[in-house]
């Protein structure tokens, strides 16, 4: 017990306090100036925009994948099921590396997509692609158990009342899944906001265009501008905590319906 607390303090609390302390040394005006430079604002916009799009894509495709994995049997189902965790297991640097090479003009996918005007490497789209990859498991893994425990009788009840499949899905199944999808969405979103490793490879890191907030922090550090980096980090931290709170609320909401 004592050991737990000491270790926790050493590894988590002290560094954390250090950062906060450092931020407190800044005056509010200085903080505001450092945290809201034009370059920073552009970086936030990309970070949050791309994270949002990626999390939405994950909510959509994650629901689809979870549904297909739970409800249907088809060749390769077990392999896909195991592979869903691949983005968790693969180091982010490797993910960024291989995705940027896949979507580059001479890559396996890029050779078809780039002529169509779809540039996946060194663009904002690339950021979205990398974030979608990184967040893929969240929605699938939060949704799978919920889908498993879904009462088939409820769907049958809807059918006996005359509802077709689409109607049943929209009216009966979707509302039950919604809290889990939202939780998965929020988890994917939170992860995407902090993501760094995969992005540096695929985005090209052009200021104002494809530069994400975590990368800007690293840039500030390389310029030995610690205070600038700390100001940006505090903004990201606050966002992470707000999301964490939202996720906890969502989970409470989900368990209320789960009974």
């Amino acid at each position, binding site marked *: *017990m004592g*050991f*737990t607390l000491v270790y*926790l303090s050493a*590894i988590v*609390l002290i*560094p954390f306090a*250090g*950062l906060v*302390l450092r931020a407190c040394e800044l005056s509010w005006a200085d903080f505001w100036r450092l945290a809201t430079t034009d370059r920073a604002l552009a970086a936030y916009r990309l970070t949050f925009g791309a994270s949002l799009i990626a999390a939405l894509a994950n909510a959509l*495709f994650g629901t*689809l994948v979870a549904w*297909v994995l739970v409800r*249907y049997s*088809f060749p*390769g189902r077990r392999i*896909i099921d*195991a*592979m*869903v965790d*691949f983005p*968790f*297991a*693969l*180091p*982010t*640097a*490797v*993910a960024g*590396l*291989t*995705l940027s*090479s*896949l979507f580059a003009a001479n*890559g*396996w*996918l890029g050779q078809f997509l780039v002529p169509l005007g779809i540039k996946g490497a060194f663009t904002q789209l690339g950021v979205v692609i990398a974030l*979608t*990859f990184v967040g*893929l498991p969240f929605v699938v893994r939060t949704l799978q158990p919920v889908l498993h425990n879904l009462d088939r009788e409820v769907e049958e009840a809807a*059918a006996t009342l005359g509802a077709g*499949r689409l109607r049943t899905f929209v009216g009966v199944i979707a509302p039950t899944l919604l809290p889990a999808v939202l939780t998965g969405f929020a988890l994917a979103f*939170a992860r995407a906001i*902090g*993501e*760094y*490793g995969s992005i540096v*490879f695929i985005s090209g890191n052009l200021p104002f265009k494809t530069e994400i907030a*975590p990368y800007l*922090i*690293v840039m500030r*550090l390389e310029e*030995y501008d*610690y205070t600038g*980096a700390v100001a940006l*980090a505090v903004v990201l*931290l606050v966002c*992470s*905590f707000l999301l*964490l709170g939202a996720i906890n609320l969502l989970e409470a909401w989900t368990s209320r319906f789960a009974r």
Partner: protein
Amino acid sequence: MAGTLRKNWRGHREASQRGTEEPPLIKWLLIGAALSFCVVFLLLPLANVFAQALAKGWAFYWKSLAHPDSRAAIRLTLTVAAISVPLNVVFGLAAAWAIAKFQFRGKSLLITLIDLPFSVSPVVAGLMFLVLFGLQGYLGEWLQDHNLRVIFALPGIVLATVFITFPFVARELIPVMEATGTEQEQAALTLGASGWQTFWHVTLPSVKWGLLYGIILCNARAMGEFGAVSVVSGHITGQTDTMPLRVEKLYNEYNAAGAFAVASLLALLALFTLAIKTFLEWRQSREFARARTAGRV
């Protein structure tokens, strides 16, 4: 022949009429869409790693891996994992034990704190240590006076890795320990076993699979961590480059095949992790099924 065919077709049609199943066309469209998504986002990236790594042949592949700087990176990554994983295993056991077996104030706060590294951007995590131990940091001067290097050296990398991988073991163990309950341990204590004996002979065996799973995840993340390590390592080639950092450096030097060669090792690690995880899940569901049948008899 025609009769059989018609019968099959009829059977198929009738099956599709069940009110709680989608028509086959919709079903296969959904499966197709999900599969293509998984292929593009899971299988292709994986296959691409190995294809690119071997793009210039096996000889170049081996040469890339055998390069002294790459070897140094591999060695450093293994060292970091070898230090940080055991640290987090010990902590994870202690924390999970405290949370699962005792009731105390601030328990949910403790759980939130354990989860904290999950929600912090790796870059911000690295920055925290920089603020603390860096040259401009709070302890920077003191460390320099005593000729201790933390940042841009092994200790910093280990600290950042420990921070990032901190929750994995505890997170896996808490539910398992909560599920086993305290009765078995109390039984052991009444039989005269000491606290340590109870821990070794009763607690540990009952959570061994969850523990193994946590170690595997923790290890995968420890070896693959990029953002946090990148901030504190200083990128000194041959000294403070871990494997992921080495990948980045080779990539920035336009040595794609070399970068992919090192990356392929990390991808193998990921596959290995997935394999163990799948095996553990399979084993768990089998044990669960067996426990259920045993309970019924």
